[in-house]
């Protein structure tokens, strides 16, 4: 019985450690960055201070990203006027493919190109997609790795709660 308990404890601690490693940025100030956007202008994260900002890392070869992006666009259209911003960060080497996908999906939120992967490294992106939610003070509050149907409800709850703060 004791051995079983120890084994369960070990399994839990390994899970806890792995989730901590992936969300190491949670609670920390969001690392600042500036990237060129799909509209041609440069955007800097720190200039969105005061807004709740969602940073969504995606790639054209990622299926769940394609599934998630129209849903994120809905969130953006709905909450943009009450202080919510969404920055899509594309990590493809060739930004033309990303532009094609943006046009195909018809997303309206700004998409930034991180071809050199500098920003992805800053945010320790090791899965695709990765969604980071930053509060009005500029601190990372939530990190989601991957996408499964139903995650959009979590995003909605978190955004609404941060907008109320």
């Amino acid at each position, binding site marked *: 019985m004791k051995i079983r308990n120890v084994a369960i404890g070990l399994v839990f601690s390994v899970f806890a450690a792995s989730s901590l490693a992936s969300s190491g940025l949670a609670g920390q100030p969001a690392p600042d960055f*500036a*990237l060129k956007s799909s509209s041609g202008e*440069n*955007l*800097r994260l720190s*200039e969105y201070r005061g807004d709740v900002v969602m940073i969504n890392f995606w790639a054209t070869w990622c299926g769940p990203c394609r599934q998630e992006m129209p849903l994120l666009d809905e969130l953006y259209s709905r909450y943009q006027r009450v202080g919510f911003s969404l920055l899509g960060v594309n990590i493809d080497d060739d930004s033309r493919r990303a532009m094609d996908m943006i046009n195909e999906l018809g997303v309206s939120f700004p998409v930034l190109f991180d071809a050199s992967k500098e920003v992805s490294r800053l945010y320790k992106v090791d899965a695709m997609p990765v969604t980071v939610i930053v509060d009005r003070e500029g601190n990372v509050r939530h990190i989601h790795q991957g996408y499964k149907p139903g995650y959009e409800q979590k995003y909605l709850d978190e955004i609404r709660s941060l907008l109320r703060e």
Partner: protein
Amino acid sequence: MTRKLFISLTAGLVLALGTAAIAQDAAPMDADAAMADAMAADADVAESRNEFRQLDQDVQSLKKEVLDLNRDLFLLEEELLFPANSQVAFFISMDVGEYFGLDSVSLKIDGKEVANYLYTEREVGALLRGGVQRVHMANLKTGDHELVAIFTGKGPHTRDYRRGATMNFNKGIGAKYLELEITDRVQKQQPEFVIKEWE
């Protein structure tokens, strides 16, 4: 009967006087011992007080030595890592900006890229309003160095524009400040990129 009373009174008196005499002899002996004990105790207290004082002094001097060492190490570390003499700072400023819309600046010192800065619309606006931005700070050893600054943006007629400016400078003793200035050359209707040293 009277005789018996007299004898018993005398015996009582003798006994009382004897006891008093014994008590009188004993009293000085007890006081001496107590005094000796007290003196010994005082000496012990004084000795331990001295020892404490000595220990306290030792601790204080050790503490001072540690503080001195800490200060020396701090100064040494600062001198090694951030020596004021090797400091070089690079600033960006813009004047007018009619012929050039700044997008990014890349700095190379002695062939090595040290900074790459992307400007947002607000940052360009701040530069145009007279702001000066410290784009990079480095530690360089004394001697000759080469600075290459590459500016990208929109040139006249909103065409993509990329220009470089090079400057060889000598790093002597003391901090050095270099300003990369973007100005308009009205005669040629072209932007001009100048690197100058602050005196």
